[in-house]
């Protein structure tokens, strides 16, 4: 797994079970920029990116990752003093795998078409290194509430990237936003009968869809450029090696 530049937070002995102070807020906000799981920690650039050619599946995927990340941290942290060291990887994997199964079953029950669309990628959340990485780096050594927040925060940071990549790819690749969802809209490109929703007028009728954007490679370029931008502003992240 990639190097994680995580400062393990000091464990305080006497703290209320649920508090939401500055430190807790930092647990949530840090992963959004300074310690973003994708662009800084280099964890979890996995398969979830494969669904980012459209925004709607990216949003559903993000929610699933946030859920799994938060609750697996919570459960691991609750169990952390009872998990035998030798088998902790397996135990963590079982916790994650069951949560992912919960997501899968729920999605099948609530929204079958999107379940069909995401298909194997839901299952692949299990091996998303971000989940496992946070369990190892944080939840195994911290109290439940803080671990839960850390999990949610990392899920959010991860989801934010997924959605940004999804928005860029869908607008330029397909000219629409949220295709496939109830609030589908066509933004740019020909109003042509090429898309289902022909009623909405569009802004730039002359725009021809950029087919590169729908290829997997486009996600790579977009993340590469995002890292470039982020590091230009945030010099301390620059890779000196």
């Amino acid at each position: 797994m990639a190097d994680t530049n995580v400062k393990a937070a000091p464990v305080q002995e006497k703290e209320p079970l649920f508090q939401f102070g500055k430190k807790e807020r930092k647990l949530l906000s840090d992963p959004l920029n300074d310690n973003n799981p994708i662009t800084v920690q280099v964890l979890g650039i996995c398969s979830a990116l494969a669904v980012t050619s459209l925004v709607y599946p990216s949003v559903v995927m993000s929610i699933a990752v946030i859920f799994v990340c938060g609750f697996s941290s919570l459960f691991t942290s609750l169990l952390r003093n009872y998990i035998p060291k030798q088998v902790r990887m397996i135990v963590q994997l079982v916790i994650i795998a069951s949560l992912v199964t919960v997501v899968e079953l729920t999605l099948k029950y609530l929204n079958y078409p999107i379940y069909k669309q995401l298909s194997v990628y839901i299952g692949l959340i299990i091996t998303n290194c971000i989940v496992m990485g946070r369990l190892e780096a944080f939840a195994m050594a911290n109290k439940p509430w803080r671990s839960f927040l850390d999990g949610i925060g990392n899920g959010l940071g991860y989801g934010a990237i997924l959605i940004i990549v999804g928005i860029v790819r869908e607008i330029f690749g397909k000219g629409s936003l949220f295709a496939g969802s109830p609030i589908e809209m066509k933004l740019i490109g020909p109003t042509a009968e090429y898309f289902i929703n022909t009623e909405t007028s569009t802004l730039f009728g002359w725009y021809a869809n950029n087919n590169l954007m729908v290829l997997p490679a486009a996600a790579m370029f977009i993340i590469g450029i995002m890292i470039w931008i982020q590091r230009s502003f945030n010099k301390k992240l620059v890779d000196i090696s």
Partner: protein
Amino acid sequence: MNSTNYILGFILAMTAIVAIMLTGLREVTKAGAERNEAIFNKRAILMSVENYLGGKTVKQLSDDEVENIFQNQVEQVVLDVQGQELELESIQAEDIEMGKERKKADEDRKWPLFIFNEESTGDKFYILSVRGNGLWDEIWGNIALKSDLETVAGAAFDHTGETPGLGAEIKDNASFRKQFQGKKINDEGGEFTAVIVRKNGARNDRNEVDGISGATVTCDGVTDMLKEGIQYYQPYLNKLRQGSEIQGALIK
């Protein structure tokens, strides 16, 4: 805490708890999930006769309406390779998984056929299921023939992993689908051709439709799928054709 017994006990207890909880959740959601799946498949079948659903699009139909239509207006037939109707107690046409059937030898395969009766006119539509390969993965669809068994009433396609904006347009793009309406599956001489998806535009009005630019492989896949898929139904369709000829002769 590091004894083997503790580790084994921990693993076993955890496995048991997890398995019980997941099985519980599965039992609770099972009925709903299965209904969702059935409705999803039924909607896909109705897509091919979308123009004849009494003014509503498939999207606008509620789940109950979909089930009603299937109960009252759709007959389900299961065919074998010779075009014989199979009398099966356990399986209905909608239960046939084309993906699995496609891997079997022709003699063991079953084909689903849906006969849709339009409510107002009583016209019959024959909905055939076809399946083939796209660019990345499998593509499939349903194509509805009018009662002359030659004119296409409509078609709808779906796919596992075609590229959004390119190959995926076979599903997303309403106008690609609409092109199929009114096409014939035979050429002027009565020779079977199926409907051809032509790169750079259809060459004739009778049995060709325009391809999607940038998605040549998927479009060729649709052509091959239709040709191969409809061919399998020919024995059954021929019987129907002969039947109606005899009937026509009798009336004269």
